[in-house]
């Protein structure tokens, strides 16, 4: 327990330095700004703004990126409530009741309870991360290549199970992602694989290029397919602070949502997405009058929003302790860390305690800032929603192009975001989800490395994955999950959970 407080105070020492406070604020502000704009989710935002952090020290850069991440998530909720456009999967549920509340002139209360619930969830999640960080890092140290490989297999299976749409397509996407990660020079033999003899492919496909292409650019192309129709709420936003009645109705959902979200967020795969859905379902089950849901029930905003934020934060746990990104956003954080010369994994905590604890403490600071940024400034965000998309997307294009160019100073990288953008557009048109592909791509390299090591140690025997108890357990979980997901009856239930409207 003494350690816990010592670590946290070390973290707050780092996070409360003037520079890091400024960076956290800037990150939250920019993240909110971009998150509010419909059509730009957290992944595209981080990919786009990655270059801005290059000049900073690693701690400051990660603090700012984390701020952008929460900011974009928060901003997404604002858009979901005011415009009924869920920027990404996690705010789909918020749009259901949040937008109804807004239509009834209670937009302010919806935004308020979302912010307050998120802040509470963020505070709890920060403490959970701080408490779990040390023991999990200890666990990670006993992991060998065999266990790591199995852990990643389990992570990918989670991603399959939690992806929307066809399971077969999700599996295919993950395989394609891993396949893409093998492009480039083979580390062991130095032979070039699938490079078409092109020199700029010999280092492999750049992660940022792939991410920005299939999320940022493809998203623009897809948005252009539909004529724009924004249902911006015309009523007054109304008062922001929920009254006593609202609080009485929502404090329990907030607590339950926080717990659910925090647990589900730790899961590999896309845990943060599951939290809001689970919370919404739970609140609806527990409610005295479930018919109110979908018609502006405050519990339907409070619970999922808290779960969303708790999950977003606890999804840092696998990354910080095991070095394994549980979702696409965390995969981008890996990219950011490696650019700054930090290899994510259990060593980060011992080698860079300032960075590790500073980042955790800054999460709480960032949550506090978001409260300040979002509530009083909501009028400004609403005005931002009136910027037409025809002016917004050329600006986004421009930022993407500049951002990707400044990473390696290669014009070919810029061309590749165009190519991957088109690939992403085609994938969406064919009913494939791009997120599992990105995750497969990021984990692919790690997997190949660990598979190789594990097989060298075991002299080429595949049994090693079953003989190691931890590895066997992880694979068993993966297998069971996959079977459950493929069972038709449960699949039906799963489809219902992910139905968008």
């Amino acid at each position: 327990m003494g350690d816990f407080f010592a670590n946290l105070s070390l973290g707050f020492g780092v996070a409360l330095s003037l520079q890091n406070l400024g960076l956290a604020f800037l990150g939250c502000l920019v993240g909110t700004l971009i998150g509010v704009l419909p059509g730009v989710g957290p992944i595209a935002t981080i990919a786009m703004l990655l270059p801005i952090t290059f000049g900073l020290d690693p701690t400051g850069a990660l603090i700012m990126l984390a701020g952008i991440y929460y900011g974009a998530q928060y901003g997404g909720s604002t858009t979901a409530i005011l415009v009924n456009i869920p920027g990404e999967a996690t705010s789909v549920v918020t749009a259901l009741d949040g937008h109804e509340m807004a239509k009834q002139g209670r937009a302010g209360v919806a935004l308020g309870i979302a912010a307050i619930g998120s802040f509470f969830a963020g505070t709890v999640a920060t403490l959970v991360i701080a408490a779990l960080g040390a023991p999990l890092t200890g666990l990670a140290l006993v992991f060998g290549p065999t266990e790591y490989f199995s852990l990643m297999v389990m992570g990918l299976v989670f991603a399959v199970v939690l992806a929307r749409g066809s399971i077969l397509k999700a599996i295919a996407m993950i395989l394609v992602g891993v396949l893409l990660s093998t492009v480039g020079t083979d580390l062991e033999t130095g032979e070039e694989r699938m490079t078409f003899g092109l020199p700029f492919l010999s280092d492999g496909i750049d992660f940022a290029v792939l991410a920005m292409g299939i999320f940022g650019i493809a998203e623009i192309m897809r948005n252009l397919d539909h004529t724009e129709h924004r249902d911006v709420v015309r009523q007054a936003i109304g008062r922001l602070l929920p009254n006593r009645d609202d609080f009485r109705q929502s404090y329990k959902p907030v607590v339950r949502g926080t717990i659910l979200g925090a647990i589900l967020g730790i899961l590999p795969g896309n845990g943060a997405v599951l939290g809001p859905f689970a919370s919404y379902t739970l609140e609806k089950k527990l409610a005295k009058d479930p018919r109110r849901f979908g018609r502006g029930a405050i519990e339907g905003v409070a619970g999922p929003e808290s779960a969303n934020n708790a999950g977003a934060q606890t999804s840092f746990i696998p990354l910080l302790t095991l070095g394994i990104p549980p979702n696409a956003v965390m995969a981008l954080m890996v990219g950011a860390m490696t650019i700054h010369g930090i290899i994510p994994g259990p060593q980060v905590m011992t080698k860079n305690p300032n960075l590790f604890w500073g980042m955790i403490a800054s999460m709480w600071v960032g949550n506090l800032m978001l409260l300040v940024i979002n509530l009083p400034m909501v009028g400004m965000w609403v005005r931002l929603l009136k910027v037409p998309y025809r002016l917004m997307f050329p600006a986004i294009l421009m930022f993407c192009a500049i951002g990707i160019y400044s990473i390696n100073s290669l014009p070919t990288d810029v061309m590749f975001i165009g190519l991957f953008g088109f690939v992403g557009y085609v994938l969406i048109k064919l009913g494939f989800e791009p997120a599992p592909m990105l995750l497969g791509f990021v984990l692919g390299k790690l997997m190949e490395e660990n598979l190789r090591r594990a097989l060298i140690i075991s002299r080429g025997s595949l049994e090693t994955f079953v003989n190691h108890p931890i590895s066997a357990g992880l694979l068993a979980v993966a297998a069971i999950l996959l079977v459950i997901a493929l069972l038709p009856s449960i699949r039906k239930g799963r489809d219902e959970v992910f139905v968008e409207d």
Partner: protein
Amino acid sequence: MSETVSGDLCPARAGPVRSPQSLVAGLTLVALAALSLWLISDLDQGTLQSMGPALLPRWLAIAVGLCGLVLVGTSFTTDGDFLERWSLRGPVFVIGSILAFALTIRGYSFGAFALPGLGLLVAGPLGIILGGYATPEARLRELVILALSLTPFCMVLFGDLLNLPIPVFPQALTSLFPADWSQKAVLRACAALMTAGAIVIFLATRNRHPGPVDVADHSGRI
């Protein structure tokens, strides 16, 4: 960004294919798998104990191909989605804008064909205006003002404040300015000129009746 107005409004099911989307998706996967298998065909697979460079990609490609075949199979047995209608205007202009940016930012030579490095000063407006036409709602005046105000903003933000390694203007441009001006001073002068241009255009054309907009088709498709 209204709900998807997709092609599945026209229920004309022709032939034995019951899910065209799955069919095309499956065939795409099979093609991808075939391409990878062909690309790594001359690489060594090695053994499990010492994995060769081709081992993982080969088995992944086979798995991708199998997924594709199953998808093709299901497209004949299970009802599924139709292919959404495709628009070409969006992708063509977006990719065109990205290409234009990539080709002009630092200069590019390809055989006898060579472009000088023009920097953000040219690449920015070019990319914005070209990209802007990806939607049929594009209006030239708006795009020009956007280009002339966003480009200097990016020049100052990325080139001046953040010091990112991005070419800001063509080198030939420095000769137009007094010799003792630093790069940053030239950058700021350019940015100021562009911003001024944006303001002038904004004020000069403010009262003009909004000209005939490109209203060929407001459905967002061509």
